[in-house]
């Protein structure tokens, strides 16, 4: 296994309980260099506890958390993960520059190195022009970018982001994902906790679903769909009158007014449509859709409300 394919972060059977209530029940997870991992689950699933364990804020009751820093990060202070909390964890009455200075100092970056790093980070987050603005005077998107910028001053090998795009406009969201892509391109492993499922679907390399303190799914979207829902595409036919013809691969309801078929690939759809053309009474409506993360999520975690 090359170094790039060795995990930066490894969680092995991690357990953590609060006052007898199990928050983590044997979590095992790996995070690889340059990987953008989408991590999500219902409220109270144990995501925050797991992140606090990874950061070192909480000590697991059992299991181990190992951070293995690649050579490309040697010499930096990369061994400490960068944490981007969900709220704006900056000082609103300090300027952008001052915020970066204090958080850089707290990470042990000093002097000329700090100034150089601040310049890089300002450019990376497109905040150069607002260097001297008070943080509270920035727009929501800028504040979010500053929030992230403050966590990467020490070039962490692992960056943990908690809902980094909440409440920002599409332009700022694009910019934030662009920033994340730059980080992953440089080898940083990013763990993104979010409820924005469409973004996870399209942006993340891998998806982990957590529920009741356990990881219930781990992989790319097609794998998750296959494992949780089976075939990924669904064709639904609606008839005005009960359909008297038997359709292969379709399942009818009791009244035979609705029929559903699952496809392994959209390439199968033309063949299905061709069959439908031969029916004495064509369906009133044809609904074709591919399963997404929402379906996987609900299939894995159920529809009952959580905390």
């Amino acid at each position: 296994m090359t170094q790039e394919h060795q995990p930066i972060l490894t969680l092995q059977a991690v357990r953590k309980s609060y006052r007898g209530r199990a928050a983590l029940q044997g979590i095992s997870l790996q995070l690889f260099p340059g990987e953008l991992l989408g991590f999500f689950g219902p409220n109270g699933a144990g995501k925050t506890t797991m992140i606090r364990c990874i950061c070192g804020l909480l000590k697991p009751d059992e299991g181990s958390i190992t951070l293995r820093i690649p050579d490309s990060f040697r010499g930096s202070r990369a061994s400490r993960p960068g944490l981007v909390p969900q709220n704006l964890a900056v000082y609103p009455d300090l300027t952008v520059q001052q915020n970066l200075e204090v958080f850089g100092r707290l990470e042990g970056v000093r002097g000329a190195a700090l100034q150089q790093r601040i310049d890089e980070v300002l450019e990376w987050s497109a905040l150069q022009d607002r260097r001297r603005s008070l943080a509270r005077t920035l727009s929501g998107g800028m504040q979010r970018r500053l929030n992230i910028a403050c966590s990467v001053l020490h070039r962490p090998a692992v960056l943990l982001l908690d809902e980094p795009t909440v409440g920002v406009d599409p332009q700022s969201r694009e910019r934030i994902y662009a920033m994340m892509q730059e980080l992953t391109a440089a080898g940083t492993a990013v763990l993104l906790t979010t409820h924005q499922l469409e973004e996870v679907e399209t942006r993340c390399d891998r998806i982990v679903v957590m529920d009741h303190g356990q990881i219930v799914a781990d992989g790319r979207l097609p794998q998750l769909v296959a494992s949780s829902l089976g075939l990924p595409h669904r064709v639904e036919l609606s008839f005005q009158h009960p359909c008297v013809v038997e359709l292969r691969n379709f399942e009818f309801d009791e009244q035979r007014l609705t029929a559903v078929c699952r496809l392994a690939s959209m390439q199968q759809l033309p063949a299905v449509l061709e069959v439908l053309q031969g029916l004495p009474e064509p369906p009133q409506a044809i609904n074709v859709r591919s399963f997404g993360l929402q379906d996987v999520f609900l299939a894995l975690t159920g529809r009952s409300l959580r905390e």
Partner: protein
Amino acid sequence: MILTFLRIAYLRLRNNPLELLLVFVMPVLFFSIFAMIFSQGIAAGTEKPVRLGLLLPGDNVAAADLQAELQQNTSLICTDLGGLPTESGRQERVILEAQNSSRYDLLLLLSADFSPAEEDRFRVRLVTDGQNAMAVAMVRAILEEYYAVQRVEGVVEQLQESVRSAAKERLLPAVEESAGQGAFFREPISPRTVFAGSGAPPSVEPGLAPVSADQPASVLDPPTDPAPGTFSEAADPDPETLLTAGPEPQISVDNPQAADQQNPRIAMYAAGIAVLFLLFACTGHAATMLEEAESGTLDRILVSEAGLLQIVAGKWLGIFLMGCLQLSVMFVFAEAVFRIHLWQHLDGFLVMAGSTSAATASFAMLMATICRTRSQLQGTATVIILSMSAMGGSMIPRFVMSDRMKELGRWTFNAWALDGFQKVFWFQSPIESLRPEVTVLLGSSLVMSLATLLLSGRWRRGL
């Protein structure tokens, strides 16, 4: 619609126990504290006995008589502090020590030749620390009354002596002449003997003057028209003249501790106000910890190189320095405007400012660690700070409080801080005398800091 807003207000109040506490319990609590202060302290006036320390000459009968008189007075709690040293320097040291003990409202000193009966020998020195003006007025009045009674008794004795002398002077020759010297010495002298030559002694009813105009002269009734050169002309004292013409009691009042100060109380008020606002300011500063926890900034800092101990220590140090600065600004201003003699007492001020700020910083950090939210901290701190300030002397000077209230106040570090500042600026005590106050303040600071560290693990678990 308006009722809906009323209902919203009611529901919000009902669902917020701290708000309920501030609205309904806090006023009652404050009323109780002030009621206790005023019912047992200054407003009680005469109900609160004056604590009088006595420094008397050891071998003076008149002084012992005065001491006995004072000890019988229920308005006074007299404590004999032993004999007064004769050496002036030692005298002043004894006085300062007694004052610094804060156990006496007033010290009473008598001169070695104290005598209420003789002119210029009723010399009393009252030494006050300036805290209890009522005590000075009360003891002065008691002493003046005592002096007046002693003067009346002296005058009566003087009158009796004068009459006795006049009787001897006028009657003895007559007795000798009429009865013969031999007979006079053969019979024992009795009133009947004395009046034998003039008939029966006059009938004198108690409380009445001799009655008959033709009665012969007697010791109880000096002649109205005495011959020139007789007793009446030379020594007949008019009682009113004797009472009014005598020397005034020499009662001096002084405050050696405030001898060179213009406004010794100003420093006390500066300290009282400064400590009160210091508590609020420090608690407000410590609330940033909760603010950072709520925003996630604290998590970010905890993940950084800074450990929890460093965070707590850094916050504490910031609050401590801010407290020192705040106290300094207050006292420098007081010095500039009110001349509290800050520079003369700089060492004592620095010691007290440092220890007070340390205790305040630790208190604020502990409060921030215990409370879960900023609003909870704000409400709880307001209740505790105002209560401590009322009981500890920041609002009402401790010296007007009853002993019980003073003892209760000792559970607040306001009281210790203010006692320390009082020693520095009012009593002008040496810096060594601040040891109890500094020990308590730094001790409580240490205890509260340890408690903060023990409880601070919750920051790692999140709010």
